[in-house]
């Protein structure tokens, strides 16, 4: 059993970064995730694992520092919250276009604009539908506990390197700020420069004489070449969709009404399902752990016995569109959510579920 600690989600993520053998964290402070860099600066891992922690001048600079280090084969990451992640979209698009592995973390707060510092899930579209320019996908993990903040950091790097694709941890203010018991995984040593060269032959680590130089770029001036590259990306995305879907099903076996929720909304919904079961309603919860790739097949399978799906999101209804696509009109799908930093309580969700059930009868 790993070491047990009581930690905030943001702190667990930071500790996991050190333990996962991350080479560099480049970031810029923003509420509600500033604890990530604060924790790393206090831990000072350059003295222990050799991990670099640098406060950049902006989120624009942070993501481009990540771009540089990732291009050179290192495990690099950044974290921010919604307004800062908007600033990073340019860099994320370049990283996706250059097929580089890295991890970005968004501890989402309410928007649009400067919005609020309270939790939100209104950056779903930005994360899974693009955000930056061009046809690209981010492997998107949605932690619903402090434990998953730690575990998904490591998983995100594993997947990013497996597919040479950027990964995003889409968290929210609740998961970032709350404390829970977390079992920390044992530290993995950082890769040596030799191991990086061996594992990432594409990385710009310095050209050996007599070998071709490595170029990290997202530029293709010939349209047909760029189209072929886009096709290659799409093939990769199809493989990820096939192999990397992760979701948790709670009380779904006999469920007539299924709540679909991720992150902290999944936690409040879990309680709402308990309350509903206590009232005799056959409710269940499908919790996507990967938002892209989205658990389409799992939702389709539930259509065999489900009478309806209710998505619960801290947004105006974003993931509900993907649920509708998966359900494809077979049963009713509805959205319930609060916005702007407000959190629906389990009681609110139960009431919404009851209204939904009545509306389908």
């Amino acid at each position, binding site marked *: 059993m790993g070491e*047990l*600690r*009581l930690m905030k989600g943001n702190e667990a993520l930071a500790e996991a970064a050190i333990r996962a053998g991350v080479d560099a964290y480049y970031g810029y402070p923003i*509420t*509600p995730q500033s604890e990530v860099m604060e924790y790393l600066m206090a831990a000072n891992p350059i003295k222990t694992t050799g991990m670099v922690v640098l406060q950049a001048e902006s989120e624009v600079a942070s993501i481009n520092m990540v771009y540089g280090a990732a291009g050179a084969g290192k495990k690099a990451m950044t974290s921010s919250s919604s307004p800062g992640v908007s600033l990073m979209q340019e860099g994320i698009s370049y990283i996706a276009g250059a097929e580089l592995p890295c991890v970005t973390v968004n501890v989402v707060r309410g928007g649009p604009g400067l919005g*609020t*510092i*309270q939790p939100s899930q209104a950056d779903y579209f930005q994360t899974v539908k693009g955000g930056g320019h061009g046809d690209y996908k981010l492997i998107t993990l949605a932690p619903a506990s402090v434990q998953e903040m730690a575990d998904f950091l490591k998983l995100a790097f594993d997947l990013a390197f497996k597919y040479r694709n950027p990964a995003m941890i889409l968290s929210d*203010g*609740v998961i970032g*700020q*709350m*404390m*829970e*018991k977390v079992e920390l995984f044992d530290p993995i040593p950082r890769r040596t420069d030799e191991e990086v060269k061996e594992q990432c032959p594409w990385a710009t680590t310095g050209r050996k004489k007599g070998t071709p130089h490595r170029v990290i770029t997202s530029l293709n001036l010939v349209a047909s070449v760029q189209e072929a590259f886009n096709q290659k990306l799409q093939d990769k995305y199809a493989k990820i969709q096939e192999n990397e879907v992760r979701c948790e099903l709670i009380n779904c076996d006999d469920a007539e009404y299924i709540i679909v929720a991720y992150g*902290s909304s999944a*936690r*409040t*919904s*879990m*309680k*709402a*399902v*308990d309350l509903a079961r206590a009232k005799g309603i056959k409710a269940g919860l499908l919790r996507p752990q990967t938002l892209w790739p989205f658990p389409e097949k799992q939702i389709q399978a539930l259509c065999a016995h489900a009478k309806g799906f209710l998505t619960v999101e801290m947004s105006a209804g974003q993931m509900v569109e993907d649920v509708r696509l998966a359900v494809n009109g077979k049963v009713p799908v509805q959205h319930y959510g609060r916005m702007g*930093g407000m*959190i629906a*309580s*389990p*009681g*609110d969700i139960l009431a919404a579920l009851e209204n939904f059930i009545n509306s389908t009868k």
Partner: protein
Amino acid sequence: MTNEEIIIAGFGGQGVLSMGKILAYSGIMQNLEVSWMPSYGPEMRGGTANVTVILSNERISSPILSAYDTAIILNQQSLDKFEPMVKPGGTLIYDDNGISVPPSRKDISVYLVQAAKAASEKNMSKIFNMIVLGGYLKVNPIVSLENVEAGLKKSLPERHHKLIPANIEGLKLGAEIIQKIR
């Protein structure tokens, strides 16, 4: 089965969040599942602060609640806000320092812990929150004193370990002075 859902609320600076943290750490020492969810935001600075703490021997679902088994209340605004959210048959513990309208519900147990008064009399103002916590643990001994001590050891940096005995004294004092109103 243990499943205790607690709100601790008061002014920023009263040690509300750290009280919750010590309670949560003690829960871990007692092999319980725990969650600690603070209100965070502009109200943190000088205004009210509150934290939801859940201790359970099962996986904790929602860290955010609309009803509580126990409310520990340290100012009037929090009393006004959270008294109606205590479950019927639940518990409300409050310090009457600065309270002009005391709790009125008859369907819950109400306890008074005059921690602010005791702290100033005994020159223990720095561990005011531990006195309150001691009162709560007397009413509901959900974690043992040993596990609170173990939790303090785990959560405090080594250089602060010398303060642990004073904190334990605070817990004991709280247990002595808490009184049942109804």
